[in-house]
């Protein structure tokens, strides 16, 4: 039996973290959350998530930097960039930084679909 997918949430808004956790927890293991980009790599290394749901607008402005770090240091770890800004340039920068997917923060289905897609690729 396959183990449940481990998800780490990186968002500085605790209410968003709680709601996303509720949703994903129905099918996956939410192993933790982090509220800044600087702490993401360490959390990822410690918690070994399969997927990181990363808010693009973390308060310290280090979302993409952290994305790049994780994708470089932990290449097997999938990162879903989570943003309300669907500007193609922003999306492009996210993919450049190593994001596996880019989903609209205002569509729950989009996040679930993205997670499922990555789960299916495992």
């Amino acid at each position, binding site marked *: 039996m396959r183990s449940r997918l481990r998800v780490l949430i990186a968002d500085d808004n605790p209410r968003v973290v709680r*709601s996303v956790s509720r949703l994903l927890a129905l099918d996956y293991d939410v192993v933790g959350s982090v509220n800044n980009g600087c702490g993401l790599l360490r959390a990822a290394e410690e918690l070994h998530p399969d997927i990181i749901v990363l808010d693009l*607008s973390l*308060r310290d402005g280090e979302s993409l930097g952290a994305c790049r770090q994780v994708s470089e240091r932990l290449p097997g770890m999938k990162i879903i960039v989570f943003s*309300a800004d669907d500007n193609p340039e922003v999306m492009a920068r996210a993919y450049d930084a190593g994001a596996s997917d880019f989903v609209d923060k*205002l569509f*729950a*289905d989009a*996040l679930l679909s993205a997670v499922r897609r990555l789960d299916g690729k495992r």
Partner: protein
Amino acid sequence: MSGCWDTLLPRRAHRSMYRTLQSAVLAGLLIGAATSDAQSPVKQVLMLQSLDRGNLTLDHFTSIFRVGLDQRAGKAVNVVQVVVGQMGFIAAPQQDIVDYIRAMYSNRAPPDLIMTVGGPAAIFARKYRQQLFPQEPLVFAALDQRYLRAPLSETETALPVINDLGLLVDDILRVLPDTRQIFMVTGSGAVGRFMRPEHEAEFARFRDRVSFIWSDQLTLPEIMQRVANLPAHSAIIYQTFGSDAQGGAYPSEQVIDGLHARANAPMFSAQSPHFGLGVVGGSTLNIDDLARRTADVASRILNGEPPAGLRMPPQVRGAPIYDWRELRRWGIPESRVPPGSIVQFRPPGFWSEYKGTALTAAGALILQSLLIALLLYERRGRQRAEIESKRHLSLAADSNRRQMISALTTSIAHELTQPLSAIVHNAEALQRMVVASQAPPETTGEILTDIKEEAVLARQIIERHRMMLRSHEINKKPIDLNTVIENSVTLLAYDMRQNKVEARLELSSTPCVVQGDPVLLQQVVVNLVRNAVDALGEMPVGRRGITIRSEVGSNDVEMSICDTGPGFPSEMSGALFTPFVTTKSEGLGIGLTIAQGIVKAHGGTIAGSKNDEGGATFTITLPRTAAIVTEN
């Protein structure tokens, strides 16, 4: 017209009279002699007076004539007056007077004109015409035409009057129709004696209606006693006086005053100089007009015109004139005075008495009203200007806020994204739980609570921005400036984060309460912070800091926004708040102007300065309000 003095002087008085007369006219003779000797062009007039001074009518006539003659003659005129009536000569014989006059002119040229004033003098002159310069022009003046029954010669002319007292009785009966007796005051002198038969003839037509009581046989005290006890329906006619039955001479004014004071009946007179002294009025002879006409004739004769060509028709009475005071005194209604009458001495009405004052007051009032109107107009204009200014400030502020919010769209979107994202994920989670029948009530409750709270948060964010977008008129109330600062920073949090600007708040622990409009003051703070954020864009990341402080003073609240940016150019120091002055490549440069307008509208000040260590600080001072802020 007046007293007649044609009785002969007693012989024994002859020499003393001569000396008196000589002295009396000395001055005039000296002048005449000097001018005559030098054959001066100064004209000489010999004026023969009927009465010495004291007869009001003749005195008045002489005075007006003398002035009129000088005005008309156009050259120097000497007038030598000699009183030929008995009052002036202590009843001297008339021949002595003639001799005296002839002696006066014995070594001199005869007078250029001889004038008589009053009836007695006219009789005298006619009687002695052959002895007194028969070739020289002679003017008979100021006399009733009945003194001139004999025809005038070529060298003579006259300016008589028609003194019909019957007309005066008509006037009396018009205003006092019940009059039954008329007490006649004419004195006991020559005029009275001369005129009485004339007047009696004039009164004949009233025989059945009015009886006339003559006083020429009474002394003045007797007259005064009589007039005080006249029977009902009586009136008094004052014609002249001169002297009473005892030969006592009394000036007209004294007699008239006495009559007026004592009489129990109204007094009337037909001569204008008596008017105003206590007579009721009626048609009067205008003595002023007579004197002026006489002066005109005299001057023309002096200028060479022959007297025969200057004959004048007798002067008749003028329009009736009444004394309002006497009408009132005797209860005579004004309705009885003839149409066209002039009523004088009416107590001035408010307008006539205070015309000057009223006009001055009205003028002052009008001026004051105009001034007030002007001030009100200016005040209204100022108020309009203030309203316009406020409106313009409001419009500019509205525009500026919309521009600001437009620039913060990304920030707004991000802010809204948070609660919305939480809502959609919570809702999705709950739906999946319900579908899988894995929705315990507690969890369901928690999720629904979270959703509601996120919705409230979203609504607050929307409201905050909508408030900034809405057109806004200034609306002051007690608010805590610290709250305004915190809300402003919240609004700009995303913007600052994106620009990697670190904001530090050093707010007073004491509420900074001011009487202010939270929306407009937030706009000021947001403007200043956004300016700082923009300025900090030139600085390396890590050196982009904004410190917002607030302090409470005894009377003021001070807020400062200090950045670590490059500061503004020195040349802009004096123009920081000038519209359209900006260092930005984008923007109109009206943010600070609007901020200043808003601060001023709150009675505060705003100033900008460069920091010694770099960057700029904007300081706002607002009047502190003691009110406690209860709102959030």
